[in-house]
């Protein structure tokens, strides 16, 4: 299945560039913010909800090409994937760590003001 490995076409890369900059905070996850379908995704949703920031979620379970392409785009093998200000921030563990240390709140505040 070579074509799956090379999922990140220039078109898809272009689209992803637009999607991750369309909002200050974008979360690619399993399920949606109203109905997370994995504990790791749910954890990040709960954190973002508690911080009271606007964010958009995109369900990668509904699009296999998007799912494979994103892994390449961010060089990150798993989901969820959190983007802040157009930049890949991390997966679930990194988000939890940054939430606990206060780093995430700080970064989000800065992103919202920029």
């Amino acid at each position, binding site marked *: 299945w070579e074509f799956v490995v090379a999922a990140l076409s220039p078109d898809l890369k272009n689209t992803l560039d637009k999607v991750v900059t369309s909002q200050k905070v974008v979360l690619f996850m399993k399920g949606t913010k109203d109905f997370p379908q994995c504990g*790791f995704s749910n954890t990040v949703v709960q954190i973002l909800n508690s911080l009271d920031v606007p964010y958009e979620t995109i369900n990668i379970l509904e699009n296999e090409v998007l799912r494979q392409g994103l892994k390449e785009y961010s060089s990150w093998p798993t989901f969820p994937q959190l983007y802040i200000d157009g930049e890949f921030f991390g997966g679930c*563990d990194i988000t939890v760590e940054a939430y606990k240390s206060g780093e995430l709140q700080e970064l989000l505040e800065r992103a919202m003001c920029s």
Partner: protein
Amino acid sequence: MGVTKEQVESTLKSKLNPSHLEIIDTSGGCGASFAIEIVSEQFEGKRLLERHRLVNAALEEEMKEIHALSIKKAVTPGQWKQQLESEKSTSAA
């Protein structure tokens, strides 16, 4: 074929030369799922995202079979020593 805890352990040992490594099988029998704590000099001067990237890259082959990987700790030997000491002092108090 899934991935065993021993496989994850030997790959991380050979690629990241950790001074401390703990791998917990969190699958409960349903598939390869691990939580890891790793202490390595290779994390020196790197942000958390870069540290996690190093671990993910080391396990590139295994990741194809792993269902869930949680990196609980990725610290330098210095940070590890500090954490152990602060734990000791709180438990002694």
